[in-house]
């Protein structure tokens, strides 16, 4: 009985729109017209045969690279802060804080950060590295690195908290036993922590891959997808709302959903979930 309300909400706002999206993807609807003309699989054919649509997945590679860096940093900080460190709670707060800021605010802050003569440029000049100053968003070969960097800054906190929680669920006596056996910090990480949080790392990896494919907010607000920073989702949104091809855009969304599902399935096959036994 208590489940009725959440179930209705779930059906109404998740499954019903998705079913509708499948239907739209088979039409040539423009988002407004009273009649939706059925065109069969034409939209899917277009998605897979038009190189300009698939080309934008290349941009996702920058974010995928970024998320590897992000996970490495998060794991590093989580490990360090799980041992007794001074100002432990303070650092935990600092690392997690960016994740709590609204994405729009972050994007606006970073536009100022990357502006010519902005925060980053003045910082580099203070450090005597003025030679590195360049157009962080204006230079097409740097823009995606800048944007991926912003994304790393924003989402590292989430990975960090996930890893920290998993590490802290490892029983304390294991470390004690390891220390008695003479294991150093690296060995403790290698043989206790890493296998202990394997499933969380696997989960983070799936999130990273699907996240990189579906990057939207930060590049959309910071650049609007201009100057070669267009991602697949930005392309989808423009297709639907600028060019009014809601049918084609729905097909693109369905294809993205399919790709994410396949990625997840492959990941589960390659790294099967197994019960970890630390003792």
């Amino acid at each position: 009985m208590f489940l009725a309300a959440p179930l209705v909400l779930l059906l109404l706002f998740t499954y019903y729109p998705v079913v509708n999206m499948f239907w739209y993807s088979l039409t040539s609807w423009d988002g407004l017209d009273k009649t939706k003309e059925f065109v069969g699989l034409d939209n899917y054919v277009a998605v897979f045969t038009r190189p300009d649509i698939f080309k934008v997945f290349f941009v996702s590679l920058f974010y995928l690279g970024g998320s590897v860096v992000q996970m490495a940093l998060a794991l590093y900080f989580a490990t360090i802060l799980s041992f007794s460190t001074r100002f432990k709670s303070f650092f935990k707060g600092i690392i997690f804080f960016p994740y709590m800021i609204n994405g729009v605010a972050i994007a606006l802050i970073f536009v100022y950060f990357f502006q010519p003569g902005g925060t980053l440029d003045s910082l580099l000049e203070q450090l005597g590295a003025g030679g590195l100053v360049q157009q962080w968003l204006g230079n097409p070969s740097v823009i995606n690195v800048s944007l991926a960097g912003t994304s790393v800054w924003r989402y590292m906190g989430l990975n960090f908290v996930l890893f920290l929680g998993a590490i802290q669920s490892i029983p304390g006596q294991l470390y004690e036993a390891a220390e008695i056996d003479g294991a150093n910090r690296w060995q403790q990480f290698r043989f206790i922590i890493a296998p202990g949080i394997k499933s969380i790392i696997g989960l983070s990896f799936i999130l990273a891959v699907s996240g990189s494919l579906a990057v939207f907010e930060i590049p959309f607000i910071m650049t609007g997808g201009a100057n070669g920073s267009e991602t697949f989702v930005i392309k989808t949104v423009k297709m639907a709302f600028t060019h009014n091809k809601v049918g084609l855009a729905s097909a693109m969304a369905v294809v993205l959903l399919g790709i994410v599902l396949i990625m997840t399935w492959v990941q589960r096959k390659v790294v099967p979930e197994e019960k970890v036994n630390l003792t």
Partner: protein
Amino acid sequence: MFPPARRTRLLTVAAIASLISLTTACAGGGDTSSADAASASGGSGAAAAAAPSGDITVLTWRTDLVTDGTFDKYKAAFEAKYPEVTVSFEGITDYEGEVKTRMNTSDYGDVLAIVNTITPAQMPDFFEPLGDAAAMEKTYRFLTPKIFAGKVYGIPVVGNTQGIVYNKKVWADAGITAVPTTSEEFLKDLQAIKDKDPSVVPLYTNYKDGWPLTQWESHRGEISADPEFDNKLGQDDAPWAEGTDHFVIDSLLYDAVNQKLTEADPTTTNWEESKNLIATGKVSAMTLGSWAISQMQKAATDAGNPASDIGYMPFPHQKDGKFYATVGGDYAQAINVNSTHKEAARAWIDWFNTESGFADAQGGLSPLIDPKAPATLADFEALGVEYVLQNPAPAGKESLVNDIDKEAEIGLYAPEFVQRLVDSARGASDETKQQIFDDLNAKWAAARTTVDAG
């Protein structure tokens, strides 16, 4: 609050935005249920014998005028004349996106501005016809894009012309005495401004915000000074061929960027800031519609400079020794076809256009046939600029240009292709100007074939 969701489709990314609009739709729906029987039965038809009555909701994109109380004054004046009507306003920031989504329900206000994405052929599905085109054109101008099958569906609140806003003081300081008449002269003047003071940005593109780049497109029709330009565009297989309007307009932007006469990093521009930059002379010129003049003048006075620093020049091109500038309507007000208070809604539209003084207050051209130009366009008067108004499309071809544009995914009034041009001009992509123009021509021609066949 759930029933209105039945007919609303949510794209995954737009889910939250739509949710918010649904909630507002429900809140707005409350008034109409209190409809009194007399006017509920009114429906369409000629002006009712009884005075218009009921509660109407007006959707507006001018959120600034809702918050600063301007609309409250209009409400008071209108309700004094029509005591039976109560008007309420709903200011919407993302007007295009939100209203378009709401139009899939029946609840999108009583009076609203027609969204730009709608094609003329779709208007009868959503809006009440306001009258026959032939009769209404005796009173109003700029109606053309809102006419379908001989009926008018919307009346623009104000008319705009197109040109380049510039800081007169900066131009005079650089020793420029006459308004440029060709693209070459314009570029030479920009260079003179840069030579005089390298810290001044001669031409600001507003690349990052995107939409200001679409203002360049509004100049089409001026180069050829041809009122049939839009109609010919639907028959043209190479709109970017050398010498065409698009070629001249887009080449000027390309050359200005290419000769480094625009801001150093276009990806970090800021629209709100740009008003202050031009007001204080840090930017010398921007390509914007005449609606921008009063905003820039206000920015100038806010910065402690005289409003007369802000000048307005036509696109630097002359035909037979004369400047030409396009004119057209801004957003047009229309009546929701599902409205239960159509007479009241109609009374609002007529009152707004004839008695509110809105167009004058905005420094725009009145939608009424009225040869008197506003004070903001004194510069155009002095130069003897001729206005070009596009002729209506022949019956059955009203949506042609929209349809080709959509099929080609060019987006004539979207910033993407202009941004691509700017990127190429500043060396941020390896395309040349000619390659882009060729590509646009090819897309246009291919889409034209598809649309003709369909």
